[in-house]
């Protein structure tokens, strides 16, 4: 965020590619050429997932997440997940860095995998890894082509490239040689402790001193790269003017570093400053002679031993932020890297930003007043042009199928619908949703396709549509009409048969019936049926179970209005005939009667839309199919009639329109509800898969926090 307003430097001139060059010169050149630095996150628990998002926010490209058994999922709704580092590298061979967030008991396996896959920078965030495991990791890194940072490191940040691999706060600042343009020069800071790293960087920034790399080497007892591994490497970077290291009491890294500086001064050609902490710390206790025998006669681990060793090697040692600033200024002279005033303004802009409200994303359907868009395509364009299986493909795969795929999916849906339904009772007087839910629960086991490629999920969705069509037919007593009678018919016609359309139907009637199902496919994550299915998916219930939950929620209260509306329009028509009055008069009379009984008027009103985007297109289709009759005509007048009776306005909704069309088609009113449920099975299946692929199990779902994060353009 802090560097957000500065354009990053070309990757090739930065410290990160310089580090990569030391282990993977081939890859360093490729990355310098593509100017794209790809990173991945291993271990997708709470912290790994959260910080993947924070890294992205800083401006880093997080190409992938890696967690065994979770391939095909997405984190932060968009970052693809791979089962292993090897799989990730096979797909993204230029992967520059990984951060490992796994629990200490399984960090070893993750690190060994990353090293075996030759990832150039491996940042081991995990802390508290058993030393025996750490030795295995370090041995592998020495043999391999990886630079290992940590364990127990906050990671590394490269402000000029805007790359963060780890959990460091976003406060580090690059040079700004030209306005709003980052520069590669600066000081490189390395520290054992995370917070000391931040406080050092902060102190230098307050004096206008930029950092081109802020690197946590790790706070554990044994770490992948020590000061004496990294400082000579960093000093070879042309753009580094000064190296600052922060050590602390405990261990012997600083003493060994000092000894190396004395023994091989040619490796340390640039100025070096050390901040050592622990001057006022109480003395610790030691036990055993082994340490003293390894390094006989040498004191180590104390503030004094570290300070003296480094001073003796010619390094300036400080113990406070004030002295750090003074000493760095002495070395760098009057050189400044950026305007401090502008730096504070930029920082301030960061913390003055209002916190973003918590949210989660769906890429399936955008729901806004009078507008419904599925994966980038307005639903009102889908209704007249696409079949139900094409809509399912769009919902689940976020793209439309080509003609060959469509034909294949149609055939699959028909096959699924021709399989007999389970022997479930169809109880008289029971709500259709309850009957259908029972069929889903009792159906033959379906193979869940969550870890399969997207194609398999689409096939599963189409299978579920075929089964739903079968169940609808059974529930309405039309099952026998779906059986394979050697006749060649489309899935659309199969739907028409399922809801009881007459023998010898016409293509126009079929098209209209299917269009009503397509109009019902989805309305985002907030309808109760979608919520029920999503909640079932949070606990990874099997798809038929989740569909039973969702379908079962489509009672007369939710999604049942079409049936009631059809009955109402039919009653209007009959009353008009009976009394020889105009249909709209009959509509007024019945509305008044209903209003006196205090009942709701089915098919009117919507919690989102004042002009339902599905309304006009269904009316138009009914018109062009030549079935538009009295009921459709009444439905078009409702917006005028209703306020005259009730004194306030309610728009007609999609259920009202479907009810009118079903009535004019001469279908049983229950067909309106059947078509709604059948279409919605496609949407529910899509939400089921999206939940499993993009969200952690057992999350707490706040449906009001859902935001559409999908396409806004045509995905074809």
């Amino acid at each position: 965020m802090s560097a957000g307003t500065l354009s990053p430097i070309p990757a090739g001139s930065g410290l990160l590619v310089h580090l990569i060059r030391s282990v993977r010169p081939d890859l360093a050149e490729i990355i310098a050429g593509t100017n794209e630095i790809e990173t991945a996150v291993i271990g997708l628990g709470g912290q790994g997932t959260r910080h993947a998002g924070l890294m992205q926010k800083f401006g880093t490209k997080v190409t992938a997440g890696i967690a065994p058994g979770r391939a095909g999922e997405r984190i932060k709704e968009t970052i693809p997940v791979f089962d292993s580092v090897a799989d990730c590298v096979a797909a993204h061979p230029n992967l520059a860095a990984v951060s490992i967030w796994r629990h200490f008991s399984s960090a070893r396996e993750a690190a060994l995998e990353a090293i075996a896959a030759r990832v150039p920078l491996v940042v081991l965030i995990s802390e508290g890894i058993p030393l025996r495991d750490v030795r295995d990791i370090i041995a592998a890194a020495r043999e391999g082509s990886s630079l290992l940072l940590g364990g127990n490191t906050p990671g590394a940040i490269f402000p000029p490239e805007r790359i963060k691999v780890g959990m460091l706060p976003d406060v580090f600042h690059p040079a700004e040689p030209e306005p709003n343009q980052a520069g590669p020069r600066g000081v490189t800071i390395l520290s054992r402790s995370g917070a000391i790293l931040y406080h050092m960087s902060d102190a230098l920034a307050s004096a206008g001193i930029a950092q081109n790399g802020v690197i946590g080497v790790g706070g554990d007892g044994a770490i992948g790269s020590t000061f004496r591994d990294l400082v000579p490497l960093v000093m070879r970077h042309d753009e580094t003017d000064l190296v600052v290291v922060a050590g602390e009491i405990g261990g012997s890294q600083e003493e060994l570093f000092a000894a190396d500086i004395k023994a091989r001064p040619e490796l340390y050609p640039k100025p070096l400053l050390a901040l050592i902490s622990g001057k006022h710390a109480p003395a610790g206790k030691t036990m055993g002679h082994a340490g003293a025998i390894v390094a006989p006669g040498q004191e180590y681990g104390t503030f004094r031993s570290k300070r003296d060793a480094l001073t003796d090697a010619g390094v300036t040692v400080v113990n406070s932020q004030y002295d750090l600033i003074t000493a760095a200024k002495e070395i760098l002279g009057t050189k400044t890297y950026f305007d401090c005033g502008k730096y504070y303004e930029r920082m301030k802009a960061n913390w003055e930003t209002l916190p973003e409200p918590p949210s989660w994303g769906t890429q399936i359907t955008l729901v806004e007043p009078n507008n419904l868009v599925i994966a980038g395509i307005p639903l009102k364009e889908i209704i007249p042009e696409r079949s139900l299986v094409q809509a399912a493909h769009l919902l689940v795969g976020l793209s439309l199928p080509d003609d060959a795929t469509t034909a294949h999916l149609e055939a699959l849906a028909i096959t699924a619908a021709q399989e007999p339904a389970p022997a479930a009772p169809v109880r008289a007087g029971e709500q259709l949703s309850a009957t259908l839910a029972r069929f889903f629960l009792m159906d033959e086991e379906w193979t869940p396709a969550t870890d399969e490629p997207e194609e398999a999920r689409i096939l599963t969705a189409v299978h579920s549509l075929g089964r739903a069509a079968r169940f609808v037919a059974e529930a309405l007593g039309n099952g026998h009409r779906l059986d394979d009678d050697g006749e060649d018919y489309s899935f659309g016609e199969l739907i028409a048969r399922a809801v009881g359309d007459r023998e010898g139907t016409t293509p126009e009637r079929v098209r209209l019936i299917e269009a009503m199902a397509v109009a019902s496919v989805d309305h985002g994550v907030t309808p109760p049926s979608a919520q029920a299915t999503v909640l079932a998916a949070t606990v990874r219930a099997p798809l038929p179970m989740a569909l039973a939950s969702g379908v079962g929620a489509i009672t007369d209260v939710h999604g049942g209005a079409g049936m009631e509306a059809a009955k109402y329009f039919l009653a209007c028509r009959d009353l008009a005939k009976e009394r020889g009055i105009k249909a709209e008069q009959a509509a007024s009379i019945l509305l008044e009667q209903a209003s006196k009984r205090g009942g709701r008027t089915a098919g009117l009103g919507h919690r989102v839309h004042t002009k339902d985007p599905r309304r006009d297109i269904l009316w138009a289709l009914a018109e062009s199919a030549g079935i538009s009759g009295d009921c459709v005509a009444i439905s078009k007048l409702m917006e005028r009639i209703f306020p005259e009776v009730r004194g306030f306005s309610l728009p007609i909704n999609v259920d009202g329109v479907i009810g009118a069309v079903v009535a004019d088609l001469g279908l049983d009113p229950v067909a309106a509800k059947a078509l709604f449920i059948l279409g919605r099975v496609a949407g529910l299946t899509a939400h089921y898969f999206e939940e499993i692929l993009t969200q952690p199990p057992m999350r707490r779902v706040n449906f009001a926090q859902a935001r559409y994060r999908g396409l806004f353009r045509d995905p074809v």
Partner: protein
Amino acid sequence: MRLYEHEAKLVFSEQGLKVPENYGVVRNADEIGGLGAEFPVMVKAMVLSGGRGKAGGVKKAADVAEATAAAESILGSVIAGYPVRTLLIEHAVEERAACYLGVTINPATYNLILLASPMGGVDIEGVAREKPEMIYRREIPGNDLELPGEIAAEVAGFLAAGIEGGAPEDKLADAVGKLYAAFQGIDAKVAEVNPLIITTDDQVVAADAKVVIDDNALYRQRKLFRLLGLTEARHDSSELTPDEKRARDAGFPFVDLLPPDAPSDPDRLYVGLVPGGAGYGIFSIDEVANIGERFFDGKVVPVNFMDSGGGPRLNTVAEMFHLLMDKEVVDLIVTSRFGGISSCDVFIRGLIKCLRDRHAEGKRVLPVHGRMVGTDLPGAKAFLEAAKAETPEVLKDMVITVGNQKIMAEVIREGVAAAFAGRQS
């Protein structure tokens, strides 16, 4: 986690190393008579510290009377800060030669390193210093679970060559291999036998044993715990102060820098620290002391080390402040939240919860000066501003700088100056 000698010997013995017969671990001198020991015995102070021999914590006794007298003199003494509460009574083996044998981690390379000397005993460090040729050192780079046989044989050869009259090389090689395997099997950081005795009848016996287990690996050492009869990890400390114990129970590392009963000097300002991670926990002590020396005539005293990093929960954050506010000596609390993995938001909510609860309960509320920057700062800032508007009186002595508009050293300096100024007015 350090093991007591008798525990370490149990581990070695389980691995197949020969150890002297253990007659018992006693708390009272008068228990020795009932142990049925065969004399002579060794009476050894069981404390988690080296240098017991030099400190008079190990004595040889020829009979019950001598052993009882030795026990009485050792029990209750203090060795390197550890009061002696238990004694190991074990058989005294007849020694022909004493070797040193150890496995540890080379701090320079993190490889395992095998150390041996035919000149074992209490002065092994002197041998290492003055006669380095008498020390065998070899790194074992592969981190294998078993030691390659040829290395064990090489060590045995080295030891035998340095012992007058030679030594049984096969038994020595066996001991070396077993020590190494024990080290790896129990996830040790140090496994050491000094002395490793060659007895007059040419047995190889581990007469002393030191083991430090890697705390990070304790979770997977249930078998070891069962062997030792331990139900949970033993905290490696001599005596915790009451506040150190309180912090441990609350789940955060804390060290008192002053003795609990130290008198406080009214001229000085005592500063409690809620600093962030362990590293800044150490550095902030230096910063407070240095700022005291530089600007306040050396009259500023840091009172504690604390590791408040690693993403503590809200109630833990509140307890960190409660502990210091309950501590009578503290005048001012300095705090820093540089949010990396920790959230500024959780931090400020925890701090304000503490202040409000104390205010409501009529407890002492100390001034808190600090700064927060980093992860979740925007949310934390919004919460802080709303809280100040809601309860201005409760939060009037809490001065939290939002963002890095000044460095932490400056925040400390201003906090200390304000506290001294408040004292004068």
